[in-house]
């Protein structure tokens, strides 16, 4: 075989690999959207991709059969506070670990890193007991407060803070700025892509979280979107058009958030991931 034809075969096989895996990954999204727009009876009929007319009624029905707008409000509420909490506590801690020397620094750092290996299912049992003792059972506080810190965030931000020259801090100090002001007005803006990444991660994590809300909440009016979906599945197990309409609405905010911050997300993820 000549070099040219070998290169051609390699190139063609790479292309087909990308297309096969790409279709496999995209298929559930395409099918979800397509089914959500089909009239309920035709959802199970011989398959076709493009609905002959768009049956938007599914969305109306799904949203009126289950209080999805309420789930949405709950999810947004929880996710916003978790995001703010994680960003602030991580920025503070990352700044301390990067810029200061203090007793037990190494010990504390390794303790934090160690938590990355603790399985969440192990923590939900005792956390539920703690939350009950604190009187937070079945409240949003239970979903928010325990989630307001993240070892991953501290780790990632520390990597980014390293690249901010210390001259900036010193100049600010000469101007009389306190530590908090330096963190808020110098470090956080300079590490904006990292902050965006962490914020998006925190938001996605809170938005998609399932096991902890499943245990911590019991009144349906407090359900977050994933709980609402799981509940809806139990009730409408075979009404696929409605189910898909519901899942489309659950998926879209996360995917939009991802598309908006894609670049910085991938950048931050790789910086954090490779330095673990």
């Amino acid at each position, binding site marked *: 075989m000549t070099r040219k034809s070998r290169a051609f075969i390699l190139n063609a096989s790479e292309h087909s690999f990308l297309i096969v895996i790409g279709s496999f*990954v995209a298929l*559930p999204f395409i099918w979800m959207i397509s*089914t959500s727009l089909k009239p309920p009876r035709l959802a199970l009929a011989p398959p076709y991709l493009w609905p002959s007319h768009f049956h938007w009624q599914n969305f109306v029905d799904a949203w009126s059969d289950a209080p999805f707008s309420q789930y949405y409000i709950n999810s947004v509420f929880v996710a916003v506070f978790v995001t703010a909490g994680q960003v602030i506590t991580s920025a503070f801690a990352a700044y301390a670990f990067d810029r200061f020397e203090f007793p037990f620094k190494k010990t*504390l750092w390794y*303790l934090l890193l160690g938590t990355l290996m*603790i399985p969440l*299912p192990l*923590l939900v049992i005792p956390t539920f007991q703690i939350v009950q003792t604190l009187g937070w059972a079945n409240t949003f506080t239970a979903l928010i407060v325990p989630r307001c810190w993240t070892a991953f965030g501290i780790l990632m931000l520390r990597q980014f803070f390293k690249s901010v020259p210390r001259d900036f801090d010193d100049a600010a100090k000469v101007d009389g700025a306190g530590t908090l002001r330096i963190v808020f007005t110098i470090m956080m803006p300079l590490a904006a892509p990292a902050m965006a990444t962490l914020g998006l991660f925190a938001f996605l994590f809170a938005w998609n979280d399932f096991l902890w809300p499943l245990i911590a909440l019991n009144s349906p009016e407090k359900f977050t979107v*994933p709980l609402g979906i799981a509940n809806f599945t139990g009730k409408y197990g075979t009404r696929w058009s409605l189910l898909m309409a519901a899942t489309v609405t*659950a998926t879209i905010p996360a995917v939009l958030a991802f598309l908006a911050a894609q670049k910085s997300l991938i950048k931050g993820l790789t910086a954090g991931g490779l330095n673990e």
Partner: protein
Amino acid sequence: MPRIKKEAKTAYFLIAPAFTLFLVFSLYPLLWSARISFTSWDGLNATKKFIGTKNYSELLRNPEFLQSFRVTVVYVFVVTVCSTVIGFLLALALSKRMKSSAIYRTIFFSPVVTATVAAGVVWQLLFDPFSGLFNIALRAIGIEGPNWLGDPKWSLIAVSIVGIWKRIGFSMIIFAAGMASLPISCYEAAKVDGATGIKLTRYMTIPLLKPVTAVVAITGVIDSIQVFDHIFVMTNGGPMGSTNVLSMYLYNQGFRVFHLGMASAVGWLLFALILIVTAFQWQFTKGAEND
């Protein structure tokens, strides 16, 4: 000296919020659950009766737990290996294609940001034995597809496919970053020596990416060993325990039959498993680097 003292004070003040939450919601629960794992506590009784290692010894003899353990090991192995290999190949294929890579990257990464519960519902539809897309496609070529989620022979494969689908994008991104940071000079030298295509990958890229592969594999294990969400909606651990992974087992012990002591023991075995696998993988990659 006073300056250092003041510095430490500021540092502790900055760490305090994250660290307090860490103590209350990670370290304390961890130790508390270790203690509970040696009791027969049901979550209601005020007294937590100490029963030594009985929970652990009972678990290790319980066929249901052993099945759960086996199921988890298979799931973790299949998902980690497949998503790592596919992620690597995708990153490799995309590394030469600047124009089309952005759209591909978006597609491959979308499952990572999608709620696993919602994805599980969609996959349930795709796997439906009668109206699911897979079996319709198989029927078109004359094969009667299996009852994916209802047949113990196929259910673990089905939920593993979802796990792989969810993870490919993450592995791809980490590999892509690793490839981008490889020294170009090595490649130039190898090319001068006449190395091309597959040889370059085999003898240059793969050995150089060992540390990155370790990160992808370790996070893969830590992640997939805790799998819960999509299994909860798709099979709920069934049929006949064929997808009853350790997290499902723990959830049922802790929140359905209220054996909190037993559930904590399951959690600690899960933790021990993560520590062992992580230590083993680091050792393995370290050894490989020293070769």
